[in-house]
């Protein structure tokens, strides 16, 4: 029992990332009808927003402290971050400590900007082209983004720590009445899950309860009629693209402390997220979210030693196996609508 709960918890954080990326992919696909292979790159850029803010905050200058010496007997050089100098030691240090959560604010305008630029500058010209062309051009764009990040940040993963307050682990088992130290779960992963739930809830609420969201949903169902009613649906879809980019970016920002960002993390997640979208059902938002969590949890179950000893290697391929089985038995995915991508 405790092992099962542990695996479910372990699956939740990866599942949250899958769900967030798949949600963005589905939003773009459902509104604009574009298959965006650059979505993983947006996730990666989000993670690098966190890296950037972390680095910016830790920018420091050197002073010589004549009262202390280093091990060679020379006067000790002390590095003081500018923030500490400007805001005093306490505020400055905590700002640096909280760099990752603060990058949420920092990344939203950046991601929305990138999303707008992408849609207006490139994707716009591909609405009428076949899906293969859309895949190819966004694939090219993903390579470009990835290489630019590699050029400026290097090829190695960059550690981006979570705030001190969240660095420990929670003894989750005690809360449920198990023995201590059975189910241990890092705080940050809980934060990630809560954050993901918040974002997903926010997106759904936005689509469900605002006039804007209503128009967008109407546009997803029948774009032409909405256009005929005199509504500028293109403008709204562009905004949705920006929103989807922001969702991917935020998923990346918060993921940075879990897995040190490197330039190809986007590609790694992209393939899986596409599988998630297909399993959930192309064009279905709840399907994408449900499939994201489902596959995340399944993946962590498959990496249990008991299961691996029966089916060696299952942890590497479980997601793909599930995708293949689902596609062959339920071609529309778990919650796919009729008539989407069935040309």
């Amino acid at each position, binding site marked *: 029992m405790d092992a099962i709960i542990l695996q479910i918890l372990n699956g939740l954080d990866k599942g949250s990332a899958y769900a967030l990326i798949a949600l963005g992919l589905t939003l773009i696909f459902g509104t604009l009808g574009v*298959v965006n292979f650059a979505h993983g790159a947006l996730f990666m850029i989000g993670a690098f927003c966190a890296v950037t803010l972390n680095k910016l905050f830790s920018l420091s200058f050197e002073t010589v402290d004549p009262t202390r010496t280093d091990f060679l007997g020379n006067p000790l050089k002390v590095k003081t971050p500018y923030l500490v100098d400007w805001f005093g030691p306490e505020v400055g240090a905590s700002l640096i400590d909280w760099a990752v959560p603060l990058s949420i604010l920092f990344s939203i305008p950046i991601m929305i900007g990138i999303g707008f630029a992408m849609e207006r500058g*490139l994707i716009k*010209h591909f609405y009428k082209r076949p*899906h*293969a*062309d859309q*895949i*190819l*051009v966004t*694939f*090219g*764009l*993903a*390579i*470009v983004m*990835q*290489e*630019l990040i*590699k*050029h400026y940040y290097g090829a190695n993963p960059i550690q981006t720590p979570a705030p001190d307050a969240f660095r420990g682990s929670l003894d989750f088992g005690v809360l449920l009445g198990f023995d201590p130290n059975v189910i241990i779960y890092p705080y940050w992963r809980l934060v990630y899950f809560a954050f993901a739930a918040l974002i997903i809830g926010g997106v759904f609420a936005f689509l469900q309860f605002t006039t804007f969201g209503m128009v967008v949903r109407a546009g997803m169902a029948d774009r032409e009629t909405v256009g005929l009613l005199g509504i500028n649906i293109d403008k709204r879809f562009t905004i949705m693209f920006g929103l989807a980019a922001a969702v991917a970016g935020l998923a990346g920002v918060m993921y940075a402390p879990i897995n040190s960002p490197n330039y190809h993390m986007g*590609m790694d997640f992209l*393939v899986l997220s*596409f*599988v998630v979208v*297909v399993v959930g059902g*192309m064009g279905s938002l709840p399907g994408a979210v449900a499939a994201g969590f489902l596959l995340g949890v399944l993946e962590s179950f498959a990496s249990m030693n008991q299961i691996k000893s029966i089916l*060696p*290697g299952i942890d*590497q*391929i479980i997601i*793909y*196996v599930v*995708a*293949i089985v689902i*596609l*062959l038995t339920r*071609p529309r995915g778990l919650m796919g609508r009729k008539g989407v*991508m069935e*040309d």
Partner: protein
Amino acid sequence: MLGLNKKDSTLLLIVAAMVLLAPFILNPFPADSAMAQFNAGYPDLMQRFVIFGIFAIGFNILFGLTGYLSFGHAAFLGVGSYSAVWMFKLLSMNVIPAILLAVLVSGVFALVIGFVSLRRTGIYFSILTLAFAQMSFNLAYSVLTPITNGETGLQLTLDDPRILGVSATADGGIPVTSLFGMEMRSTFTLDAGAWLFQFNTGYYFCGAVLLLAFYLAIRIFRSPFGLMLRAIKSNRTRMNYTGLNTKPYALAAFVISGMYAGLAGGLMASMDPLAGAERMQWTASGEVVLMTILGGAGTLIGPVLGAGFIKYFENIFSKINEGVLHQWFSFLPDGVENGAVWVVEHFVGPGWHLTLGLLFMLVVTFLPGGLVEGGQRIAKLFRRKSTEPQDGATQSHPAE
């Protein structure tokens, strides 16, 4: 000639001449001049041109004719490489059985994967092939380590059995791959004044295989079977309504193109007997898509051009570094020079992939027919001036 019409024979002859004379054509600059870094006439690179050309020709039979975009073709390349290396380990160092096994095994793989994947079309098909390829890649890295040797990659060792050959040569080394005694790595060097031309057995072997593969592709393109594949691309639903089951045709195309990929993998292992899982990664699948699109999908010569283009510039661009750039731009004033170097630096050396990505976006956006379409447009410009329009040998026949 050989059942081809005049135009196709000309095309085949041009390709044959280019393959034959490649060591000259690709080596236009004297060996110790400053331009020597643009030479591509050395065995390793020429082999890559030809092998990736075969890979792309095969991919084009699937994508160019039927329109099914597979994102998992590298899996077949990897499977081919592994089978070939196993043949070198177990049977002998002769390349013929290795390549035959590579083609056979990848064909079986393609049959299984194609049978499942082709139940869906469009993006679902792409994702299914991608899923299968990633699965093979992950398995090759983890559980299948006894067969694939995991991260290290499969290599020859001195205690391999090699039933029909020798485990080790007389001087205690690992034997090299050969074709009935002709060593693949042996190179004949011709010194012609300042020029240095290299003629490599392995390259000419690959070249012969390329010609064969190219000839087969022409025959497939011009056959009723090829016509059927194009019909699938242009309107599958209508084909179904006429009472025709399109699936066997698509599956046949998939298997053929998988076998081409296996052939390329087998050749790769024959030139350099190692096989690693990274050959199966989905970025490798993406690369062959890039080659085909860049050259011109659905055309005969396009994929070969695309493969050559990408591999050539990959090689040349990777070699250019900051020092070379400063040398090039040294005629500019200092400030401008540094600026120019700073800009260009992004695109060369390790930044080659950036150039590739940009190029790819530009080609897909503005030149969907690839290099072949570009060539045709240029040819059209010139032809307008002359009065008589004539068909170029490399004309594309977009299967739309």
